[in-house]
């Protein structure tokens, strides 16, 4: 006889519960609203020193362009527009959220030793890059409270893709 199949369960029960310690170790992302930012702080001055030592070889002096690309605007957008040149897409003129700078440096930089910076260093480097990009006052102490308050010039340009197929070319 052909009998009906076993009812598929709501849960299979495979896997183990994730402990709080496990999640603390693993959960290191940062959102624009600041959720995920760790304790600690840093300033642009501290960041400048770190940047020279750990970053400038790849991103150029002051982050203005090296073998792995610029991180800092070199001229105001207006000046570039007048000169007919297109501005490089860097933090100051393209990134919509300052928290992303912290998150990305912490997870991926320096490229040859990712995960090697402590959180204070990441705050300091973020402060350095944000102030070099003129989106933050160079004297401000960056921490979990101040970082999410920084407003990025390009933020209002971002629009989610609303294409849904169909004949239109966009």
């Amino acid at each position: 006889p052909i009998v009906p199949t076993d009812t598929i369960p709501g849960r299979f029960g495979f896997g183990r519960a994730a402990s709080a310690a496990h999640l603390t170790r693993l959960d290191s992302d940062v959102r624009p609203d600041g959720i995920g930012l760790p304790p600690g702080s840093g300033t642009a001055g501290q960041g400048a020193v770190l940047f020279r030592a750990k970053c400038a070889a790849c991103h150029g002096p002051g982050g203005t362009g090296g073998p792995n690309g610029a991180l800092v605007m070199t001229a105001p957008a207006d000046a570039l527009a007048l000169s007919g040149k297109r501005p490089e897409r860097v933090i100051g003129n393209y990134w919509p959220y300052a928290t992303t700078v912290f998150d990305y440096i912490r997870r991926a930089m320096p490229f040859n030793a990712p995960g090697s910076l402590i959180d204070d260093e990441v705050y300091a480097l973020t402060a350095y890059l944000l102030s070099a990009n003129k989106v933050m006052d160079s004297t401000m102490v960056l921490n979990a409270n101040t970082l999410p308050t920084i407003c990025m010039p390009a933020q209002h340009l971002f629009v989610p893709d609303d294409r849904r197929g169909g004949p239109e070319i966009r």
Partner: protein
Amino acid sequence: NALAKGWPAMAVQVGISQYELKLLDDPTRVPGLPPGEVGTRSAFEKLVKKPSDISSRSPLQDLHGIITPSDLHFERHHNGIPTVDPARYELTIHGLVHRPTVFSLADLKRFPSVSRIAFLECSGNFRTGKETMSPQEIAGLTSQSEWTGVKLSTLFREVGVKPSATWFLAEGGDAARMTRSIPVQKGFDDALIAYAQNGEALRPEQGYPVRLFLPGWEGNMSVKWLRRLELGDAPWHTREETSKYTEPVRAPGGGPGKIRQFSFEMDARSLITYPAYPAQVERGWIEIRGLAWSGRGKVVRVEVSTDAGRSWQVAELQQPVLDKAHVRFRHLWRWDGAETEICSRVTDETGYTQPTLKQLIDARGPDTGGYHLNPITPWVLKADGRVFHKPQNWR
């Protein structure tokens, strides 16, 4: 570890042995080589990807059918290929879920599994600029496999995703800790937690032992070496969905330009892979062959023009035509030997027809950059039968 990394390339170059040379004269008179544990590619075939520091392109002009051999699947890494021990591998799902859970590889394989043949394409998959460019160089960042894994929706049910969860973060275990925000709906629709490719375990280059696979969506989001999924109520705006993988576009109505974000779906595209540079053909009957695909569903039609786009003919589609999959198209044509241009265009089930580059740039503006370019790609057929790319410069 040059040996382990280099062996297939080496084997290609080992060439023919003395014993084999003897066989070549008349293989029917000398016993052949014995059966083995693992087959070899013929020493006469040189099938290689084209690597850069950050990517490696599939040799589309050398491939047949719709399956890409796993060792020729394109690569795009953001800090190299990690070596992940499957015995130590874990996938953690947490955030807006009722039961934050850690799954071992063995756990994942115990769940109900599914397989599907689907393409994966990098959204930065268009190069142009000189005549001597092959399909591999122009568009080699797309490949297709049969992927097997567990539906993400199965795992979502297992951990109890909360109704408030609208986005999830996928994080890789590589040195870039690649991170992307993805709408939860895609997880319920057709996302796969994949552990196999073309019948075997994923290759390291494609995320061994486990990757996310989002059918039809830009390759970067199908996070490789997947180690963590966090459910949340907003996107994270990671670097790969802000600084990268976004496109400057014209504002609707012509205001100041905008930056398009979260452009997930890969637009329908087709490409003639034969005849194409560096092939040389003879006059007479030519079967024009190529690939067509759409991230929005099924290919419904491919048209081929052999007169530089003045007229179009409907090509044959190799069955079965699968959802969000490379389709092989073929069109028989009698070439009279006069110089001409040949190209293809696809239409998908949403009614979208592949545009020219000019149409794309007109629509998006000249500053749009290199993501989501899916233009009609003409080949110039010279009277001597040589075939060249027609550079599509706009910057």
